[in-house]
């Protein structure tokens, strides 16, 4: 089937091939992170984000308090220091750890900061609001609750992992 003719590469074709080549290369560059991303869940089992000690249970109250903590994060290229914030409070004996990232477009929410909306998390950007347990208030822009952190309490210390989204 394949004849000489088909194999002969004209200048224009060569150019096309070369361009495809470059395009292909670029596409590979773009595909790479996507592949990594796609593989990620599979890798997760052996490679969980480490749990970081954030607070001692003694410090916690029924009132949400803000804790900032940092840890080292490694990606393919470098290790960087990441700072994260969590709102922690006690619900009976249970520790609740909420992410401060507004689920609308990502501003940082604050607890009880707006006079008109006491005992709620308030987002200064577009007035998004969340109840104490992180559930979004209907009629404000966010459409899902604040994320909760993966959490563990060991020997009176609260350890946090990655934020998990709830619907």
């Amino acid at each position, binding site marked *: 089937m394949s004849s000489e003719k088909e194999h002969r590469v004209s200048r224009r074709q060569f150019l096309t091939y070369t361009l495809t080549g470059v395009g292909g290369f670029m596409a590979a560059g773009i595909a790479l992170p996507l592949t990594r991303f796609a593989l990620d869940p599979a890798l997760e089992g052996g490679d969980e984000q480490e749990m970081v000690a954030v607070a001692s249970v003694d410090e916690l109250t029924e009132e949400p308090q803000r804790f*900032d903590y*940092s840890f080292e994060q490694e990606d393919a290229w470098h290790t960087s*220091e990441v*700072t994260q914030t969590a709102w922690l409070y006690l619900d009976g004996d249970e520790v609740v750890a909420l992410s401060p990232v*507004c689920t*609308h*477009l*990502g*501003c*940082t929410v604050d607890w009880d900061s707006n006079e008109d909306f006491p005992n709620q998390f308030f*987002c*200064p*950007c*577009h007035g998004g609001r969340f109840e104490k347990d992180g559930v979004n208030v209907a009629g404000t*822009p966010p459409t899902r609750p604040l994320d909760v952190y993966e959490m563990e309490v060991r020997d009176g210390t609260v350890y946090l992992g990655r934020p998990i989204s709830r619907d």
Partner: protein
Amino acid sequence: MKWTMQDIDTYLQAKEYVDTAVIPLIPIDLKEDVKQKVSMGTFISTMADAIERQFKGRVLLFPAFTYIKNQPLEKRKSELIDWDRHVYEQGFKHVVYLTADGDWKQVEDELPDMLVWLPALPFENMEDRYLKQMIDQQMKQIIPLLTNKWQSEPKQRP
């Protein structure tokens, strides 16, 4: 949001929510006080990142407006006004110019929108924990500047 591919997608889909542009103003100078200029630039970028993190959903942080320090102030002022007009016409009703360069204070009244001037703090050798505290303290001043600005009418451009 930042001037990155990922964030710009969010911006394009949620334009109506993103009405504030933050433009860092950073001088370049290799002749005099080079290190001081570098330090100033680092400081402003760090603060710009902190502002972006706090107000990610409403603010678009632009790449820095960078200029030669000894270039006449009038010239850079008019260039900055061009930037302002461009972003304003594209829907950014609030524009914040963020700088540590005192020159801009001289022309503050001639700028179309809000100049936030911060005295550059040298934090080259600061330990992380102090650095964090310092950023937090600065943010305590900056956050109300923005939230108050949002309460008031956008400045009209001539």
